[in-house]
């Protein structure tokens, strides 16, 4: 069966957002239409083996219930206040232990990578969770381009910290710029994603546009937003939350139902949009893929 190619359309154009949530029905509809010989845009994303079959959380919830302290500490605030973030032009500085340091434009960063869809669970350390259809590419593919040296044991990330675009920075709730880090093997893991979009739309500012990290087996705050700097470092970096409160927020912050946050239990979670709570899964349900990264480690100590 011939499917007409429409190269001038991007993937974003092909699946109208309203139909996204009924993707299967939509696909059936497309299949029917194709049989009738109608020229219609092609399929949605190929299903990644890493994607979950769970129903994605509503787009409205994903884009209005956010922790992005640079735009206020209320979860409804980023959706209102992040409009001041300028995401174009955007550049990312790469430095530290690598052969190709420099400042790269967003276009340079993205050009060689084919975007793919990953439907991931997202578990916030606060006890709620979502299912988010991200579009992006594996972080490891990008990191390899910078040719990290043998001294690169960790990767450190920074969010933009511009008081002109982020008026809440003066509140000093955290030590800006927001900083996060991964061990090199965590960063190179195929699950670790750099996202540029969700629900087939470019990321909205409140979700960390134009480029954010997604590490689905760790608590959400590890998935740093609006990245402007990537550094290859030898020493374990200190994340912003670790600096604010090391006893409550460790470097690893792997989702772990058996290790409570000092102020609340972590064995269950409220999936946004659901009434009852669900059991929280070890490594947020990605145990088969990532448990080997931590073999022999005491996860109670390395929380």
């Amino acid at each position, binding site marked *: 069966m011939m499917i007409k190619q429409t190269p001038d359309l991007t993937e974003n154009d092909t699946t109208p957002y309203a139909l996204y949530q009924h993707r299967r029905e939509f696909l059936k509809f497309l299949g029917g239409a194709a049989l009738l010989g109608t020229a219609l845009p092609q399929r949605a994303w190929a299903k990644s083996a890493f994607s979950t079959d769970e129903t994605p959380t509503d787009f409205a919830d994903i884009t209005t*219930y956010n922790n992005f*302290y640079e735009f206020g*500490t209320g979860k409804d605030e980023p959706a209102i206040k992040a409009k001041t973030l300028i995401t174009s032009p955007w550049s990312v500085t790469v430095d530290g232990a690598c052969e190709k340091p420099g400042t790269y434009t967003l276009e340079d960063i993205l050009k060689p990578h084919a975007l793919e869809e990953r439907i991931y669970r997202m578990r916030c350390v606060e006890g709620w969770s979502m299912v988010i259809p991200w579009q992006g590419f594996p972080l490891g593919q990008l990191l390899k381009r910078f040719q990290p040296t043998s001294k690169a044991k960790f990767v450190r990330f920074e969010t933009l910290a511009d008081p002109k675009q982020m008026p809440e920075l003066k509140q000093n709730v955290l030590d800006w710029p927001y900083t996060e880090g991964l061990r090199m093997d965590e960063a190179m893991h195929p699950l670790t994603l750099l996202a540029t979009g969700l629900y087939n739309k470019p990321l909205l500012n409140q979700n960390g546009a134009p480029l954010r990290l997604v590490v689905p087996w760790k608590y959400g705050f590890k998935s740093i937003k609006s990245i402007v700097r990537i550094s290859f470092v030898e020493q374990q970096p200190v994340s912003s939350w670790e600096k604010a*409160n090391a006893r409550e927020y460790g470097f690893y912050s792997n989702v772990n139902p058996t290790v409570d946050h*000092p*102020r*609340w239990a972590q064995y269950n979670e*409220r999936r946004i949009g659901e009434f009852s709570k669900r059991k929280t899964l070890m490594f947020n349900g990605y145990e088969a893929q990532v448990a080997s990264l931590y073999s022999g480690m005491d996860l109670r100590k390395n929380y």
Partner: protein
Amino acid sequence: MQLPEPLFSRCIKPLVFALALLPLVLMGFGVWQDRLGANPIEAVTRSSGDWALRFLLLTLALSSLRRLIGWTQGIRLRRMLGLFAFFYASIHLLLYLWLDQFFDWQGIWRDILKRPFITVGMLAFLMLLPLAITSPKAMLRRLGKRWKTLHTLIYPLSILAVLHFWWMKDAKSDTSEPLIYALILAALLGERLYQRFKA
């Protein structure tokens, strides 16, 4: 200063009662119309806690107002506002027991023992409970002098309630809001200390 008596008892008192019910009405409307955002359970839990704390501080403010501006009528709103504090605190507690813990008593007990912010919140509620029970005039008469002593529990329980809020927000590195409550409470308690030392 005093308001004309008919105005106070016929208008102000019922008006205060209606206004005090407004947060509940708005919460109910918000749930019904799905206007409470992505996490409505969290929204109503937070809101009921906020209002319990606000009514506690308002209750404490009435006797300060009597001393500072001589408005004695306000004291007659004290029982009502105190009971509203209890009302919203009960909703807050019920939401925690039901929609956060789903009446898992073992989990709740663990929470109380292990988590200081839950411990102090629960203590504050346990101290508020006898105040609500002894609020009818008949109880006041029956308890006599002991009633007044019992009702000084409002001071420690208010401190615990603010602490409960503080410790919850502190985990998120975000104590600006509880700080406002703490400052108001400090002013209200400070005024009482000042009166005591002055006398």
